[in-house]
Every structure is written in C-alpha cells, then in structure tokens.
C-alpha cells in the first residue's frame, strides 16, 4: 500500500500493532496496567498482549482468576483512583457473567457522579466468528455494548487503526470498549484476509475516536461496515470495480460515538446503502445506520437499503451453517447488486 522508497513503512499484523500501542503507553505512563485471563505468559489467547509480560513484568501484565465480575470491577475501582487499566474480557460473548460491572458501573459512574468521578479504563475484548467456535464464542455483540450509554466503543479493522485507536482508548478519560475481531488480528493459526497485515506508523500514533474512514472511494453505492467485514467489503469493491460498479466502503471504526456525518456524506453522494454487520440483524447497528440516514433526509436513498447481518439466529457451529449466516463477500456482493438493480 503506501510506502516510500527511502523509509519503507513496516508492515505488522493487527495484533502486533495493538500490542505496540499498549507497550508505548505503558512505557510513558506507569498507571497503565493490563489485566485479564491468560494475558501474561500466554500473551493473550488472540495475541493481544504478546511480549508485554517480558517487558513489563508480572506487576503490570497480570493474569487473573476466571472471575470477570471481580477483575473488571477491580479495573473500575483502580480507574476511579487514577490508574488507566486495560482489562481484557477474553471473548465478548462472556459479557453475560459481568455485564453489570460494565454497563451499570463502568459506564454510569461518571454520569451518576455529575462528572466528578472519571473512569479512564479500556475494556479490550475479542469478537467475531468464522472458525466454527459455536454460539457462545463467535458473537460480535457491539450492538449490545453500543446500545447501553456511557461507554465509547471502538472496532478497528486493520493494523494501523488498531494501533491508533488503542492509543486513543488508553488516553481517553471515559471508558472505552475496544473490540478486536479475531479474524483481523492476523493470527498464524486462523484464516485471514491479507488486510490483517498492513503498514503501521512508528512511534506515537493516534486515530481519533468517533471518526469513520473512507476505506474505498466510490460513487454508486455506499457500504457502511466495520471490523472484519471491511475486508470483505473491500474485496467486493475491488471485484465490482472491474464490472463497472463503484462501491464506497465506509469503515466506521468507532460505534460510539457514531460518525453519522461520514455516513450521510457518502450516502448523499451515492443514494444507495448497504449495511454490513457481523452482529445480529435486528435491534442493532444495521438498523441504527439506516435510521440515521432517513431521519436526516428521507430523500437521500434512491432505493431501499439492504442489510447483510446475522439473521437473528444463534451462530451455528457447522461450517456450512455458519457461513450461511455470516456476512460473506458473496452476500455483500449480492446486496450491492440488488441495490444497483
């Protein structure tokens, strides 16, 4: 992608980029610690902390018991006392055992205290399916987190954003849920799109929370998406470009706060909208994006928008079934063709 002859930009996979941001912040701020299950010698089940233990030691990279309510709550208490903990929930699917700390405490304390108490904490969590991990280990659930007020929610799709959003998340004075898709981490043991490895700026690198990116410019149809689905959408955009359909891909990058302007700007240009969401279809992100468009201007859309999402089923285990519910490139392409028809 972008590289110059003289100083080639390093290419990292997403997990290394994420870890780089954490390490940089830990070096300059010793109130940053990383807590979670298997984040120490294992380096994170999805390599979210690989190498951190070696550099920072057991006082700052800390394996916890399997007690999510206790250790997320611990992160909250430490944050209100001035630390900047990063706490990992191994899979977002496990939110059910600890959601109270997350949504009734982490997310509400600042408001309930009238702004007098801050909770500068990052809740890092792995999301997504595609490798037959079944109904309890494949969910993205960003719609659930985003619906509940008081936490920012960021969802990087590529290495550079993973680094830049992690830097922002750690520095933010509000709680930030940082959701990394296993399929974008670039893990050696999982199928991956080539986009999970990419150029990552050296040194301090910040991607602002709340700003979407135009991942591909286009004029005919807007695909609004996020996380791993960005990769698929870009694949589709490349494919269809040769067939004369110009697809603009908006990578939301942040779910809360939602960059509605970026969506409107693109749809204002194309008049056609496909929302691609690896979360459940109903009562979630795809509906919100569509509503945000029409409540601004009911004339923006020339044709009915299409949603490509998990069709309100638990995520099935068998590969053939799972790929029937995931937002695959094939489903995205079909939706784009439908709005172009």
């Amino acid at each position, binding site marked *: 992608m972008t590289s110059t002859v003289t100083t080639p930009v390093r290419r990292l996979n997403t997990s290394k980029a994420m870890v780089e941001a954490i390490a940089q912040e830990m070096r300059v701020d010793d109130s940053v610690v990383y807590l979670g299950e298997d984040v120490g010698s294992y380096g994170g089940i999805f390599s979210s902390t690989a190498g951190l233990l070696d550099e920072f030691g057991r006082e700052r990279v800390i394996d916890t018991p399997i007690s*999510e309510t206790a250790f997320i709550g611990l992160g909250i*208490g430490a944050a*209100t*006392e001035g630390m900047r903990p990063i706490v990992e929930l191994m899979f977002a699917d496990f939110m059910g055992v600890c959601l109270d700390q997350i949504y009734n405490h982490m997310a509400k304390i600042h408001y309930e205290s009238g702004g007098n108490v801050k909770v*500068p904490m990052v809740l890092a969590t792995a999301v997504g399916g595609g490798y037959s991990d079944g109904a309890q280990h494949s969910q993205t659930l960003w719609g659930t987190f985003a619906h509940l007020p008081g936490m920012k929610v960021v969802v990087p799709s590529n290495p550079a954003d993973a680094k830049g959003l992690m830097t922002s998340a750690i520095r933010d004075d509000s709680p930030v849920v940082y959701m990394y898709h296993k399929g974008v981490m670039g893990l050696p043991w999982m199928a991956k799109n080539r986009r999970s490895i990419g150029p990552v700026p050296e040194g301090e690198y910040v991607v602002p929370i709340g700003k979407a990116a135009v991942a591909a410019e286009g004029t005919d149809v807007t695909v609004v998406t996020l996380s791993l689905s960005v990769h698929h959408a870009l694949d589709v955009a490349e494919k269809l470009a040769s067939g004369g359909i110009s697809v603009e891909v908006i990578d939301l990058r942040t779910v809360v706060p939602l960059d509605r302007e970026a969506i409107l700007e693109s749809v204002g240009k194309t008049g056609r909208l496909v929302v691609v969401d690896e979360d459940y279809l109903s009562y979630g992100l795809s509906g919100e994006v569509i509503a945000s468009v029409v409540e601004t201007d009911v004339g923006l859309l020339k044709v009915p928008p299409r949603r490509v999402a998990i069709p309100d089923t638990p995520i099935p285990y068998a590969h053939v079934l799972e790929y029937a519910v995931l937002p695959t490139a094939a489903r995205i392409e079909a939706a784009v063709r439908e709005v172009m028809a």
Partner: protein
Amino acid sequence: MSTSVTGPAPGQDVPPVPPVSSEAAARRDLDADTRRNLYATMVLSRTYELAIVREYHADKGPGFDIGKGLVPGEMHLSAGQEPVAAGVCAHLTKDDAVTATHRPHHFAIAHGVDLERMTAEIFGRETGLGRGRGGHMHLFDPAVHFSCSGIIAEGYPPALGAAFAFSRRPGNRIAVAVTGEGAANQGAFHESLNLAAVWKLPVVFIVEDNEWGISVPRTASTAIASNADRAAAYGIPGERIEDNDVEAVYEAAGRAVARARAGEGPSLIEVATLRMLGHFEGDAQGYRPELAEVPQHDPIPRYEARLREAGVLDDAAVEQIANEATSRVEAAITFAKESPLPDPAEVLKYVFAEEA
C-alpha cells in the same frame, strides 16, 4: 471468630492500631473519646435519617406516591445499623476508600462524606454530589473515596480496584467494601473475596446481617448461620460480631484494618445488626413477625445507657451530641432545599468525560 488473625509480618510497615486478641479487648474498655465518638457518629446518622424520613414523607400524598415530592424514589434507610458503620469507619482516614450499598447513609456519614452535598444529591439538586444525576443509591464523594451502588454485591469489586491502586503507591491506604447478608449469596461476593485473597489486597469486607433481604429471611437465603465461616473458603480471617455491638465491631474492624494496612490481605467481618425500618420507605413489612419487638433493640439508647453507666456520657454530653447532630443535619437539609435544581438543558452533560 472462625480463623485466628495473624499479626503483621516482621519488618513490615505496622499501622497505628495494635493487633489485640479479642479476649484482651474484652477485658479492657475502649478509651472514653473513642466511645464518645462512636456514639456521636451513630447519633448523627440516626438524626440524619429521621430528618430524611420527615422530608421524604412530607409531600408524598395524598396517599403515597413514590415518585412525588422533594425526595422522590426508593429510600433505603439504615436506622439500627449505625453500629456497623461507626465501628468500622472509626479506623479510616479520608484517604481510605469505602464502597457501600443501596443502604448507604450510615457509612457515608461515618466516613465523612460531605453532608450538605450528599443531602443536596438526595434532594436532586445541582449542588449535590452528583449534580442530581445519582440519587441516594449513587453517592460519589471522591474527596473521601466514597461510593455506593444499587446493585447488590456489585460494590465489592470496585473496592478491590481502589485497594489495588493504593497498594501500588506509598502509604498504607485500604478499602472497605460493604454488603448485606442477602447480597452475600451473589456471585460478586465470592469472586471478590477470592481475588482479594489471592492478590492479598488491602480490603476489609463487611457483611451487615440485618436478617432480611427485603422480605426474605436469612434462613431462606443462606445455607449457613454465619457468613464469617465463608472466610475459610478464601483462607482469610472471618469474624462474626453478635448483637449489633458497636465496640465489638470497632475491635474486630481494628484487627482487620491493621492486617490490611500491614499488607497481609483481606478479612471478612459479619455483623449481626438490625433493620429498624422497612426495606424501603413505604414497605409495610407484613412479612416480618418480630416487627413489634424491633424498637426495643435499638442500638443507640442501649449504647447510650452503657456509656452513661460507664461515666462516659451524662445528660449534658448527650444533649450536646444531639444538638450538634441536629444542627448539622438541619443545615444540610436547608442547604439542599435552597440549592438550585439542575438545568434540564444540561441533561446530556457528563455522559462522557469532557475532553482535556
């Protein structure tokens, strides 16, 4: 006591409170100042809550409409449970943290939360601790590291975090976490005790056993007679204080606080206490067979009598303490009532921290 308390390890920063065995404590009286302070804290808390009762019910009619009046919403009062808060918080400074429950006033008062701003919060005013956004179950006073929560047992985990932060800094600050005996059957209780024990965090866990979780008696909710016996499940000391005895609470808390300050880890203290009022105001307590006997177990007159007998209190002292309490409480209520309401136009503020 189910487990004996180990003394501070040699060479460690030993805190001011000397670890005394409970037998020794039983033999000698507390000093008069401490006893007077315990009493005064209890009286202040009770005075406060009686004023809240008065204000709360002043304008709920006709009939009783929970959402009406200057103080709307659920109101959980701690009258009868003052010995727990007074006895525990006597060992704390304002640098120590306390996480309390849906029934928070006695701990807030004993720990020195700003009475005016707390009252303003309960009255939903802009000058309140939470600018009217929190309410009586959500009191946050960062000046004394106080917080509380309406979800039972979920105040335990944040206390671990305060303790975790404290343990990485100079000083030997600690955190105190409070729940009721009903809440001790919630998962967060177990997870918190285990984690605090594994990491030897400076936390003192308090269980207020008032025998009721709303309408459910302890025997219907808890498999064993004493939550102190659950301490053994985490290898930490556990003590149960019977009979709502403020001095026994003070002694036990002294040991637990000393242990925490010495870096030896958490302890668990359960106190048999008394919910004098309904679960919340408006609760007719039809489920409560012993209701008629409740007033005679009021711990404050009982303690007063004991201190009079011991020569620590006389009429003048009692009156002075009562008057001071009344004037502080009424000043706080006046402050609250005279404070401005929050501006509805600002309702969207404080969802996220303002950017620096």
